């Protein structure tokens, strides 16, 4: 638990919130400090202004009648208590003449002759018996004026209330700042706990996957926030990993199954050739067939290899801007004689002026695979059509239609999987990888591969036919 707590304090989330809490507290401290400085200053300035006015009043008295008038002025205001101001008139000898203060403050005045000090308020009335409980220590502020002939006059104001208010304000500000900091930290802990807990859940999933269990998925709250997005990406990644693992396992099984047949056949032929007595010609024939079997095996291997590379996204396809019409017409030219040789009529309808981002080699290969199939499965007398056009939805579509047996609706999804071959007798040559390769190539180009019913006439004995369509997005305009 201890270690967990320490680990928590090290988390980025906690540090971030701590930092922002500190910044927030500092900001509120500065703001309140500014308010404090402004209001405290104002209180004192008002007191000073009032004192200045009273000093002017006393100065006028002095001008009018000298020290006596001043003395009388002070006595008039202080006798009986309740004076607004604090006064003290001191004789050059140091004796107090009049006023409601007992002694002059022993404080050095500042540049403007102002002093601030603590005094003891005389108990009500003039009796002067002071209650020494310390509670009557009050703050005063005033000026000491040196009058001619050695008299000294103090005029001040009791600013106890004001200074108390100001200092209470200061305390409140400090307390508020401390509270803001504490609240910030608490909120930080709360928020980062939540954050860390959510991250922890994702980490737990990662650890379980690492341990070999591909089932768990990161929890999502579907708010679309960063963590939710992370979970989503993480889950998508896991889905892909799982699909690849599954496919790999399936491929492994299929390879074993599919290679066993030609390998066994080859082994038997070689065995036969060894046992064959004397007949050189038949031995040679057996060896030649064995070589042909090997070539077939190598072909399967190569197909598996390129397929794996494409599916793993490792293939460094060289995607370029190209005119799909070139690809289509090259292949039309390549396959037309092949079709004619097989008694099929071949047509091509190629739209020019389109632009596609793609790899010529891969696209040609995909199209060649489809044409291969069309030629292979369409009975003689049928027709094969290669078409390139821009579809209504603005895609570039290569399509090959034939009048062969077609592929039943239910099998169309299946045939793009590896090693799936619909003629279980496997009388036609082929690895069962051709359409998987087409699918992989189309995927690399962000395209769509669809199989549908062709234009064949079922009644003529040929079948419904097949329409294989490869759709790709158009290349964005060059000018853009």
């Amino acid at each position, binding site marked *: 638990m201890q270690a967990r707590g320490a680990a928590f304090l090290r988390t980025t989330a906690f540090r971030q919130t701590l930092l922002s809490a500190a910044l927030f507290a500092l900001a509120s401290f500065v703001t309140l400090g500014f308010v404090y400085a402004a209001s405290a200053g104002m209180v004192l300035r008002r007191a000073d202004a009032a004192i200045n006015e009273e000093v002017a009043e006393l100065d006028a008295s002095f001008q009018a009648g000298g020290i006596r008038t001043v003395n009388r002025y002070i006595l008039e205001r202080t006798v009986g208590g309740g004076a607004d101001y604090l006064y003290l008139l001191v004789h050059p000898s140091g004796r107090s003449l009049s006023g409601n203060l007992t002694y002059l403050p022993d404080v050095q005045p500042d540049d403007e002759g102002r002093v601030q000090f603590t005094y003891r308020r005389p108990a009500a009335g003039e009796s002067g018996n002071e209650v020494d409980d310390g509670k009557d220590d009050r703050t005063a502020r005033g000026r000491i004026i040196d009058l001619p002939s050695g008299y000294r006059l103090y005029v001040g104001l009791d600013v106890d209330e004001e200074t108390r208010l100001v200092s209470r304000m200061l305390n409140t500000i400090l307390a508020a700042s401390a509270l803001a900091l504490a609240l910030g930290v608490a909120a930080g802990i709360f928020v980062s706990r939540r954050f860390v807990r959510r991250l922890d859940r994702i980490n737990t999933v990662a650890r379980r996957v690492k341990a070999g269990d591909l089932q768990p998925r990161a929890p999502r709250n579907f708010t679309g926030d960063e963590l939710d997005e992370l979970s989503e990406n993480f889950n998508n990644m896991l889905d892909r990993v799982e699909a690849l693992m599954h496919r790999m396992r399936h491929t492994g099984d299929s390879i074993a199954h599919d290679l066993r047949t030609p390998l066994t056949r080859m082994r038997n032929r070689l065995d036969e050739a060894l046992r064959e007595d004397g007949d050189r010609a038949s031995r040679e024939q057996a060896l030649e067939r064995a070589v042909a079997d090997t070539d077939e095996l190598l072909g399967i291997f190569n197909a598996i290899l390129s397929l794996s590379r494409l599916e793993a996204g490792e293939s*460094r396809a060289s995607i370029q801007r190209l005119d799909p019409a070139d690809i289509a017409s090259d292949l039309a030219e390549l*396959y037309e*004689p*092949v079709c004619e040789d097989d008694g099929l009529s071949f047509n091509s309808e190629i739209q020019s002026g389109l632009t596609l981002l793609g790899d010529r080699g891969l696209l040609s290969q995909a199209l*060649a695979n489809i044409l*291969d199939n069309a030629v292979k499965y369409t009975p003689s007398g049928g027709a094969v059509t290669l078409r390139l056009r821009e579809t209504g939805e603005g895609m570039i579509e290569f399509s090959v239609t034939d009048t062969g047996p077609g592929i039943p609706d239910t099998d169309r999804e299946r045939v793009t999987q590896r090693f799936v071959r619909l003629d279980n007798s496997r009388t036609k040559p082929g690895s069962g990888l051709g359409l998987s390769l087409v699918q992989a190539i189309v995927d690399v180009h962000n395209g769509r591969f669809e199989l549908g019913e062709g234009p064949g006439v079922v009644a003529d004995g040929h079948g419904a036919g097949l329409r294989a369509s490869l759709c790709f997005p158009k290349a964005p305009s060059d000018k853009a």
Partner: protein
Amino acid sequence: MRILIVEDDREAASYIRKGLRESGHVADHAGDGEEGLEMARAAEYDVLVVDRMMPRMDGLSMVEALRADDDRTPVLILSALGEVDDRVEGLKAGGDDYLVKPYAFAELLARVEALARRRDPDTVRTKLVVGDLEMDLLARTVVREGEEILLQPREFRLLEFLMKHSGQVVTRTMLLEKVWDYHFDPQTNVIDVHISRLRSKIDKPFPRSLLHTVRGAGYRLQA
């Protein structure tokens, strides 16, 4: 011909060597890139067959080193890496041809012999002649026994390639690569069909055929 095989797999090397010797060539073997570079520098070879991935010095570095010495000996690179980019890389490093493993020996032999032919001073030829078959590369015309034969553009390129390599075996894969620029194997016999079309134009009307099928390997145009 004298051929140097640079290949770290001894068994593969001895298989190639034996095959080349049986075809009447002299073949030496180097076990890695460094040894291969030394041997290629020490002696005159007609063709080098270089494996791409080898210990000590890989095939591409070796070929680059040779080319840096201005050694123009034709090089056939063997590699298990068969993607388009891998080929481009191999050819950029100075290789003249690129063969992906696994391959049939007939394929290797055909390519080695085709490469050796390249060494002939490459004067710009405007006319190819094989027996009584003549091709004018400027006028784009083909004439046999004084009779003009009309060919489609691709048929013309196919025949041009065959004539440039007359007397040699040319494989189906070579034709797909050099005439069509495709680096994959269509399952159907597309090349055979195109050859038979060409044959019907250049051979059928005449008493003697020039375009021969070499079993298990490919084709040969020979007078």
